[in-house]
């Protein structure tokens, strides 16, 4: 009973998922329904990403798993362990060395290359869901490319707040056709989605798979007078001094003292190893 198939899923399930992935590649941004299986981890905890990864992994792969940009967050550790056990594949924390990267909420800072696959865990794949809760309706809206509702919502933001009040899971238009949810990555990451690697999105509970092939046009929705702004907090990393990375804010004392560190732990560690230093680096503080 402990003897599971390679990468856990049975072959028939993998074929079903593989077919859905290929349809996703053929129709970039379209959410392909798939018969998501119950996984030995809860829905909402990456079951979609895990199923997509399981359908992709081959014995020669090297897997990296991140959550919030970090390799050592508990859910990332748990998923990495799952594949180490069920697929006996190599794992790494180095973005560069990985062939398959499963992620929750971030795109690594280092540009991805051809031959790599980035697998996103997606909670709510439908970008229109919070504007229209009915699946039967949103499906029609995609079929008719009827995205007015989304533009109205974004424009209301501008009218009310002066700018678009969406900071993560910022909707994109893929190859000029489907409006797509990029998963809850910060909008800072949106421009990275035009990349050399294959991007696959798995939503287990919602039973959807979608994809963005390499070099596909991915445009964050905006308006001529209010162009998309991917900016982030105006601080350098306090450990490696990077000014171009997405940062976590960490509270460091009871008085509300805080520091900013790269959310991509591998990227930050590598910069520190190369000698980059930030305001609160151990040596800088001595």
């Amino acid at each position, binding site marked *: 009973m402990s003897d599971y198939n390679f990468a856990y899923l049975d072959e028939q399930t993998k074929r079903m998922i593989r077919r859905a992935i290929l349809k996703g590649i053929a129709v*970039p941004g379209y959410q392909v329904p798939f018969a998501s299986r119950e996984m030995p981890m809860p829905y909402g905890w990456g079951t979609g990403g895990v199923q997509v990864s399981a359908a992709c992994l081959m014995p020669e792969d090297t897997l990296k798993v991140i959550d919030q940009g970090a390799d050592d967050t508990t859910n990332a550790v748990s998923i990495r362990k799952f594949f180490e056990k069920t697929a006996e594949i190599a794992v790494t924390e180095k973005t560069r060395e990985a062939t398959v990267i499963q992620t929750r909420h971030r795109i690594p800072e280092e540009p991805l290359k051809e031959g790599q696959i980035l697998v996103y865990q997606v909670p709510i794949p439908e970008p229109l869901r919070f504007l229209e809760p009915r699946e039967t309706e949103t499906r029609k809206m995609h079929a008719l490319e009827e995205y007015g509702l989304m533009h109205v919502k974004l424009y209301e933001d501008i009218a009310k707040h002066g700018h678009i009040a969406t900071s993560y899971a910022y909707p994109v238009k893929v190859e000029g056709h489907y409006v797509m949810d990029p998963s809850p990555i910060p909008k800072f990451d949106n421009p990275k989605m035009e990349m050399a690697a294959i991007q696959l999105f798995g939503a287990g509970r919602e039973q959807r798979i979608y994809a963005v092939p390499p070099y596909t046009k991915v445009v964050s929705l905006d308006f001529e007078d209010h162009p998309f702004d991917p900016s982030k907090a105006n601080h350098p990393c306090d450990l490696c001094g990077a000014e171009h990375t997405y940062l976590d804010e960490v509270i460091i004392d009871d008085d509300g003292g805080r520091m900013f560190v790269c959310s991509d732990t591998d990227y930050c560690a590598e910069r520190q190893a190369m000698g980059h230093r930030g305001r609160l680096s151990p040596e800088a503080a001595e």
Partner: protein
Amino acid sequence: MPARQMSEQSLIGAFETPPQDAARAFRAALEALARPGTLHGIKGGQAPAPVSEAAASLLLTLCDPETPLCLMGAHDTREIRDWIAFQIGAPIVGPAKAMFALGTWDALQPVTVFPIGTAEYPDRSTTLIVEMEALSQDGAQLTGPGIETTASLSLPALEPFQMNAMLFPLGLDFYFTSGTQIAGLPRSTTVEAN
């Protein structure tokens, strides 16, 4: 119905280590479709002639009792049907119900009879596996998703692929197979004469 003797050939030709071989074959198929104009090695499946090793491997990787399959022309033989019945279990159907179709380009004509999906479910379309004499990275010029600038592929025709791309997001997706090589052409690719 009296049981008919299955040809011995139908009992062989599966992947040696199915989960691992199928995983490698899938990755070749994924890269091929995600990067139109690139050629990839795919092997391990052996079906009766004239099915190429690439096509046999692709069928083993993607097809099963849940995927109606259409065999056309010289690829619709008793030996091949037996092999599919034994190794894959895909129901053999006509073009209108096919999720996958296998044949040479000529045998698959007219491709307009295959389902292209619906506006709400563009995924409900056929994937055609086109057996080729050879594959090379020249011929038609390709642009679109998966292609950084332009790519080239030895397509068997021009106009049908241009018509297909016009249907986007509906349309057919193609694999081209020859020996142990595979290339892909999704409906999203724009095709022009070189």
